[in-house]
């Protein structure tokens, strides 16, 4: 079945059209438009297309609208009307203690308001309200992008964060995972590699010193042989 996603931010009127391909020869197609179980009547109809007009004034009118074409077989196509989705980072964000974490939230349409939440146990606590300027900074570089910067990270700052964009017709959220590592985490493999390098260097230097001594001894031998 065919599907299409449509993002709507504010109240508007939408026209949805189902159009049959010219090559299909259906004798007597019966087309119904449905939202869930409710049938909607066409507003306009041509030989091969059926259109409905929907006025979206609040979030209850959002959802999935399906057109069903019944002839010998049944074909359906669905339009999903929803609030614009918010884009974040799927992979965990890795930062270090004392460093700065940056979380960027994006949408396609301009958002009315942005809210950031952090999880305190199982609850969501809005950061906008407890805005300590030296810990959290929220910047809005453009109407559809929002940045949360967390300064002076500690281990406790790790966890889930949510970014919520509010539109006239509703809001949508996305999740960020923040991991705060201590500096010793990558330091361990680093020191292991440096130790290995140091061992190799010392070995080679010792070998050089040893072979120089041996070489000097041999040269003395050569000198003696030549003098003979």
């Amino acid at each position: 079945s065919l599907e299409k996603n449509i993002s709507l931010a504010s109240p508007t009127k939408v026209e949805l059209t189902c159009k049959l391909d010219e090559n299909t020869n259906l004798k007597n197609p019966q087309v119904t438009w449905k939202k869930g179980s409710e049938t909607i009547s066409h507003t306009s109809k041509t030989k091969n297309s059926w259109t409905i007009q929907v006025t979206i004034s609040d979030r209850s009118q959002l959802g999935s609208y399906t057109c069903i074409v019944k002839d010998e077989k049944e074909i359906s196509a669905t339009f999903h009307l929803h609030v614009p989705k918010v884009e974040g980072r799927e992979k965990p964000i890795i930062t270090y203690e004392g460093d700065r974490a940056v979380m960027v939230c994006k949408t396609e349409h301009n958002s009315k308001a942005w809210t950031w939440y952090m999880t305190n146990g199982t609850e969501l606590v809005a950061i906008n309200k407890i805005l300590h300027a030296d810990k959290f900074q929220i910047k809005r570089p453009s109407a559809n992008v929002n940045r949360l910067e967390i300064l002076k990270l500690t281990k406790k700052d790790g966890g889930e964060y949510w970014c919520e964009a509010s539109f006239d017709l509703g809001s949508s959220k996305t999740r960020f995972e923040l991991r705060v590592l201590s500096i010793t985490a990558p330091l361990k493999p680093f020191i292991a590699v440096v130790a290995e390098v140091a061992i190799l260097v010392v070995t080679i230097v010792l070998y050089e010193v040893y072979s120089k001594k041996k070489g000097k001894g041999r040269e003395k031998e050569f000198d003696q042989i030549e003098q003979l």
Partner: protein
Amino acid sequence: SRGAAAGWAWGVVFHFFLVNVLVMGMLKTFGIFFVTFREEMGGSSEQVSWIGSIMSSLRFLGAPLVSAVCQRLGERPTSILGAGLVAGGCLLSTQATSVPFLCFSMGFLLGMGFACLYQAAAVMTAKRCRARLAFCNALARSGMGLTFLMAPFTQLLIELYGWQGTLLIFGGIMLNLVPSSMLLWPVSTDLPQKSAKNQRRGSSVAKKDPETPGGCLDGSTPRELQLHCAQEAPTTERLIPHSREDSDPANPCALGRLQKNPESSSSATSTEAKRSHKTLAATKKEPPQPLLDFSPLKDPVFFIFTWSFLFSHLAYFVPLFHLVARARTLGMSSRDGSHLIAVAGITEMLSQLLSGWLADHNWTKKYHFHVTYLLLSGVTNLLGPLATTLPLLLAYTVAFATFCGGFMALVLPVLVDLVGVEKLHSYLGFAAFFAGIAAMGGPPLAGWLYDYTQTYVCSFLFAGACALISPISFFFEPSAQKWKLKKANL
């Protein structure tokens, strides 16, 4: 101690191999860092890609400067310096907060470090591996084939430790180049005071038996003595005991009897070498070394080589760049594209080894092989646009990779054949510089070709044309050599 000399040659090859793995690996995995840097620093795509451009182009452009440093300090200190620069650059980059900072720490420091490492390793390989230079060079270059392991490894590190932790660990890994650089023991020292003892030790170790079993050899002594000859005609450098090249004209050197009997028995040569060196040490004058030796630019052989090097480089990179994109436009998935790249990499590695081994037999001059591979590669590229299905594209990839591996493996041996080892530093430095200019212009040119013609066919035709233009200069090689000889004998 005969085994020791061969052992050190393998050590040099191993170091060069490691340099290839780590340097090329770093260059290739930069793309993974690119995405992370863009997100964190927020620069534009163009700004962040400058870092990668500086890193890869300085590797070539820094070569003349590095060759001067190498001639002053010696290969071993330069290589250790290079390793230090690379490791330091990685460590410094962990503190980066902006793109210009990264341009310096990752672009400049790493680029110069790579140039140092490459120059020192390449020249050292040429100095140590006289007999089997082509094979040893190919063996070292096969390290580039292993770089495909670096990408998933880097991804894993970034997932575990973030980009800063990854760069920290990379800095440590690059430090491994310090002990491997220490394997680049000098073949002979430049200082006259020390060289007497070293030469004596060297001559007792030098191989006099031309048909040596086992790999690379250190046939340095007869050649090193040639260094002190007043006239350094290029043809004297060709006197490798086991090479079957054309006999050279009479040598004006005082040590004539040594050169004219290269295949004489071992003990005779070594005692002669010792005695004649003793007398020579008294009368030797060290020619003044200029800081930056511009003599290659006056040498027609240099232009012959650089012309060929430049165009063969373009012919190598452009199709690789666009192979995956071409596969996509023909309707294949990007998975097929990455399979093609993998096949190309493996085939190239194998063909490099085969070409090196083949060229070392010295059935004909090495550049004849080089020219043959270039011509075949050019023809393959010109036929490339005919490949429109996956099997045909696969056949093209295999053929292309085989011929490219063939000529790439021979670049260094051909240069050594043309100019000899003593002047290799300055020649290689300048050749790399010009190749760097080509390398900088290559990808944008290829991109422009695509934008202009809206098809990738032109890239392959362009690469084919480059590959066919490049060997033209070698037709002038015999006449250039005669010209040089006339000039030297005047």
